[in-house]
């Protein structure tokens, strides 16, 4: 992918002086944009850390919610979020990658596939609360899953599916046609080509896209609140049909409480959520590097 957009600057003709000034202006504008973004992030981080870092301790991680802010903890929410995201991954990853392979490798390019393509792109932009409403009607009520971990994971899977499909398709499309042709030339079938040539090359890209999609899902509150994930849960999920809570919901609840102690708790829980997100992104980068090294 990188190679495509890589332009050698030396060969660029320097015909117009204005071009240089334009470049300077553009460069400084881009730099200001970057500084602004980072500054906002830093302010947010500093604010959250100042409020919450002292509250972070083992007790906080291993306690259930309580009316007393100093005794409250995020165990149920943390475990709930972890279970939720694992289940979501189990549902969404095979479906998403499968759909992407079909669309890229098997589907004929006709009006139907174009309609599907446009719709998937649109679905990726649908507000998450809409998925919550769909999940409430479809999973909670029609399929009678109740307000369970399973219903939550199914809703989240729907939410991330379009993003996974799109990023997987990008990754598969980036595999050069020459590799496929070479594979066919030595007598490989279509399945063998996909299995041994295309997928391994596309895999790092697929993984990165997927994990970024899950990082988004783990911070989602609206769909969970819509399907009715609960706020006060003082036990760990025992199975697929167990009621559950999740980190963003716990944070949402604490932020809106009058007592200062709960606001501190919310800040500490945000730090935990940030750490989980960073870990997930780190795993994405690590996996990508690992597979890339293997292949070249």
């Amino acid at each position, binding site marked *: 992918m990188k190679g495509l957009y890589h332009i050698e600057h030396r060969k660029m003709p320097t015909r117009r002086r204005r071009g240089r000034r334009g470049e300077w202006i553009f460069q400084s504008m881009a730099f200001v944009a970057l500084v602004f973004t980072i500054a906002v992030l830093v302010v947010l981080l500093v604010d959250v850390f100042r409020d919450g870092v002292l509250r972070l301790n083992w007790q906080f991680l291993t306690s259930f*919610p*309580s*009316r007393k802010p100093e005794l409250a903890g995020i165990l149920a929410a943390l475990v709930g979020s972890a279970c939720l995201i694992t289940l979501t991954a189990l549902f969404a990853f095979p479906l998403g990658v499968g759909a992407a392979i079909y669309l890229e490798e098997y589907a004929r390019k006709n009006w139907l596939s174009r309609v599907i393509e446009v719709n998937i792109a649109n679905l990726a932009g649908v507000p998450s609360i809409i998925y919550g409403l769909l999940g409430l009607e479809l999973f909670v009520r029609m399929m009678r899953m*109740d*307000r369970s971990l399973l219903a939550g994971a199914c809703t989240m899977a729907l939410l991330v599916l379009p993003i996974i499909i799109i990023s997987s398709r990008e990754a598969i499309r980036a595999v050069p046609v020459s590799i496929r042709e070479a594979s066919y030339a030595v007598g490989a079938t279509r399945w063998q080509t996909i299995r041994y040539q295309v997928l391994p090359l596309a895999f790092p890209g697929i993984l990165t896209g997927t994990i970024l999609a899950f990082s988004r899902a783990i911070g989602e509150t609206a769909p969970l*609140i819509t399907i*009715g*994930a*609960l*706020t*006060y*849960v*003082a*036990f760990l999920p025992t199975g697929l049909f167990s*009621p559950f809570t999740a980190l963003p919901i716990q944070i949402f*609840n604490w*932020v*809106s*409480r*009058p*007592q*200062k102690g709960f*606001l501190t708790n919310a800040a500490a829980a945000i730090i935990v959520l940030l750490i989980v997100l960073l870990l997930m992104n780190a795993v994405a980068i690590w996996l990508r590097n690992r597979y890339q090294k293997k292949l070249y």
Partner: protein
Amino acid sequence: MLKEKGRMRQASLFLVFLTTILCISITPARAELKGLIKVDGSSTVFPITEAVAEEFQKKYPGVKVTVGLSGTGGGFKKFGRGETDIANASRPIKPSEVELCQKNRVEYIELPVAYDGLAVMVNPKNTWCTSMTVKELKKLWEPEAQEKVTRWNQIRPEWPDKEIHLFGAGVDSGTYDYFTEAVVGKEHASRGDFTASEDDNVLVQGIAMDELALGFFGFAYYEQNQDKLKLVAIDDENPENGQGPILPTPETVLNGTYQPLARPIFIYVNRQSANRPEVEEFVRFYMIMGGPLAKEVGYIPLPDRAYTLALDRFKRRFTGSIFGGKGSQVGVSIETLLLAEQK
């Protein structure tokens, strides 16, 4: 003599204490209770139910209690479909919700759990606004005021000719429903050009940073932010329940002089669920521990007699709402509540 009197008092106090303990412990300690109790509804009632659930699960580790936060309206929707056992409600049930319950054959027992005062607040730097009458509040908040009543001196000519910035509870909350009923006279009707938030801390911040702000929300939030806010005394111009403007305090809310912005808050129990031993015990526990726990999380507990009467009503499985299923009602004092409970 005096000493003896003191000792007598001590002894009698001790006796009272002992009997209470006995009363609580004599009822069979069914520690083997099991099951799942589902509660959902108002964010105003949430802290009390959370506290009760926490204590209940300490006593009965086999029972799991979940408490959701869908707002009073959202809670009743689930309750009416029979999806939850108990609904938290910061106002009495409405006709549309009664209909939903009837459609799904859900019978409910209404139990008051505490009192909540709605406080009207301004910025501490606001020197002029110390009290308001309900009429003035109505003039400011009614739907017709939208984009018309925008300056302080439009409410009282002696107040400064400056813009007024309004903050209020979100329109999905029972708090908003109650405030509009009490002030405007019609539930769920108010001007739309105010900053609304379901998160009361946003309102606290908004008023704390804006000299020209005025807002309303739960009294519990004022107690935690006394340094950032100033209370406005409310005058309902009815000398029968206290003369002149009255500030909300636990006393004025309880003795019925802080009107009309004080209201009882409730739980609604599904009658069928109440037959399950764990739900029955939870409600009983709620009526015994609810008072002290409500106080602990910032609400005003009802007099003990109200809890006893409510518990009695629960035991008799007295269904329906004492408010006739008409939604928010203004000026429900403790006395009216008690009288109604005796039915």
